């Protein structure tokens, strides 16, 4: 057994005399590949470009009516709800999940805020808190089922969507609470409908809240440990777990936070509509997913930025307003938005493929 000496095997001695660099290769540098590289590094640039381009095109077609401060801020108002819900959706999708119940949570919480005030006569402040609590609770149930029982998010939230919506109709008895009543008895509920005017620009607090939520989340996702962990969980949950991320806790916190943001959206919805209407917002799940996808966040999780989602929502807003003003049949608008969705991911895919 002559070969059984301890220490490095003989043939390995040569290593130390070799160059100490890792394998390196020539790099090509064409303009296209450099562009792709840039786009890859900052994925929210693509939706930004599309947004600017769409705005310019509609501006040229529709002229001053569209390019006015009023119309521009109107878009912001119109996407406020989708933007806020989209922020919740982005969080969930970054963890490689999906939340089909966001719109339902939003409506139910707005109904809770309204009914607690008017049916039970609770102080509006307290009702709002209860609404947010309900949002957090539903989020917690979603999160619990996803993280602990390990059910696929699609199914959990598909079921929850139906459950919450049915609860909403049963609880509200399909009754709308009128704007006048809210105005006189509980103006706090409408606070996000208040506007700030700067020249022709009309900003609602709701729109401002959307921007604030997105900015805060962008900060949190990028600059805090929790944010990094959200990305890690979406990227590869097993690896994240082994690397010391508390995957279950992160997942649950994400769903709870999404529920809370949806409740804020519900509050903003009251401001936007003036009234509390249990039939609103049933399609917010599709709208928010659309915004997220056009904004370049990967449905497989772990990649994308929440700012992109905001651009995505605005793109849809620009298209709807622009096509509406142009006088297109609404069905054509849906058709174009359908194509936009596919085109957006196709571009995204192209960038990724190139720069991988």
């Amino acid at each position, binding site marked *: 057994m002559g070969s059984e000496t301890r220490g490095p095997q003989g043939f390995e001695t040569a290593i130390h005399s070799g160059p100490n660099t890792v394998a390196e290769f020539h790099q090509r540098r064409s303009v296209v590949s450099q562009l792709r590289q840039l786009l890859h590094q900052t994925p929210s640039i693509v939706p930004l470009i599309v947004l600017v381009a769409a705005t310019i095109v509609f501006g040229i077609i529709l002229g001053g*009516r569209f390019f*006015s401060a009023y119309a521009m801020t109107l878009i912001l108002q119109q996407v406020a709800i989708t933007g806020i819900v989209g922020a919740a959706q982005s969080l969930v999708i970054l963890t490689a999940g999906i939340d089909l119940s966001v719109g339902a949570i939003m409506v139910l919480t707005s109904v809770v805020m309204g009914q607690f005030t008017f049916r039970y006569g609770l102080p509006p402040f307290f009702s709002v808190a209860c609404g947010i609590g309900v949002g957090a609770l539903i989020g917690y149930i979603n999160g619990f089922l996803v993280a602990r029982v390990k059910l696929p998010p699609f199914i959990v939230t598909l079921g929850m969507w139906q459950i919450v919506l049915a609860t909403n109709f049963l609880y509200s008895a399909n009754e709308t609470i009128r704007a006048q009543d809210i105005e006189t008895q509980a103006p706090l509920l409408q606070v996000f409908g208040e506007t700030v005017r700067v020249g022709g620009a009309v900003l609602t607090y709701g729109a401002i809240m959307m921007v604030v939520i997105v900015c805060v989340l962008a900060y949190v996702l990028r600059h805090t440990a929790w944010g990094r962990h959200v990305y890690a969980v979406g990227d590869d949950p097993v690896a994240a777990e082994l690397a010391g991320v508390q995957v279950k806790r992160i997942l649950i916190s994400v769903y709870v936070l999404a529920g809370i943001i949806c409740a804020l959206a519900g509050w903003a919805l009251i401001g936007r*509509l*003036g009234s509390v209407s249990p*039939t609103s917002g049933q399609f917010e799940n599709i709208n928010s997913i659309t915004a997220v996808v056009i904004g370049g966040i990967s449905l497989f999780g772990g990649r994308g930025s929440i700012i992109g989602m905001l651009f995505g929502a605005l793109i849809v807003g620009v298209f709807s307003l622009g096509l509406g003003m142009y006088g297109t049949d609404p069905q054509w608008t849906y058709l174009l938005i359908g194509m936009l969705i596919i085109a957006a991911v196709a571009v995204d895919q192209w960038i990724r493929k190139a720069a991988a």
Partner: protein
Amino acid sequence: AAPAMAQDKTISACLITKTDTNPFFVKMKEGATAEAKKLGVNLKTYAGKIDGDNESQVAAIETCIADGAKGILITASDTKAIVPSVKKARDAGLLVIALDTPLDPIDAADATFATDNMKAGELIGQWAKETLGDKAKDAKIAMLDLAVSQPSVGVLRDQGFLKGFGIDLGDPKKWGDETDPRIVGHEVTAGNEEGGRKAMETLLAKDSGINLVYTINEPAAAGAYQALKAVGMQEGVTITSVDGGCPGVKNVEAGVIGATSQQYPLKMASLGVDAIAQFAKEGTKPKPTEGKSFFDTGVQLVTDHPVEGLPSIDTKEGLKLCWG
């Protein structure tokens, strides 16, 4: 108030419907478009995604304001919730006319050109009661409604029917809380054939003795008829409906539907467009029908089996007046 931007010479107006998939609204849109073309009005149309989609309608109103439209015709999905947005439009100097469905409160709009949906329901309810005669006491009624979210048209027609038939309504603002044993059950249909058939089948399985069917609209009635036909019960059961669309009236003619309450969306739409054109030129607003808080575009019972004391038109007449 938002500035009415570019002062185009052409008058522009908006039509906002609940959905653009229900034939009723599609026809309304066609009527409005035709009238607008005649008057040289630039009409743009908007719609919600489903019945009850209030948000899309709010966005549509805002778009119209931004677009500098002179007036808005709207069939509101949520008659209460839309009010603040309508107020915004009126504050911005637009004429807002509610079509088909009155707002709540009704004076939230400048004018209302509407069918009385409660009345429409009452007519078929009364007709059914008279037609069944003595059997009305122990009728078995299937109620085929619109949606679980109980949009107001659905509630008004349903409750109108029951009122006309002489059933205690409970809370007239919602269906499903009646205790009369003659009602076999309420099911929802989404206002289309598929939902109508499934709902009818379910209720038939619950009680195969059903002999009277109320349906929210004629597509649902057609679906219900298919379900009855599948079990060979089409002869003994009376179907009533609301709308008066051409396929519906033809179904009355063919005996599929016993009676339907016909409304006039084309009339509503063209009257609405006229009113906006008038308002833009002269600044005058339309007046409501005498004795009512809205301009009633009328509803008529269409049946080939008229009953005593209940004015109705036959299907020949109905076909002349039908929409689409």
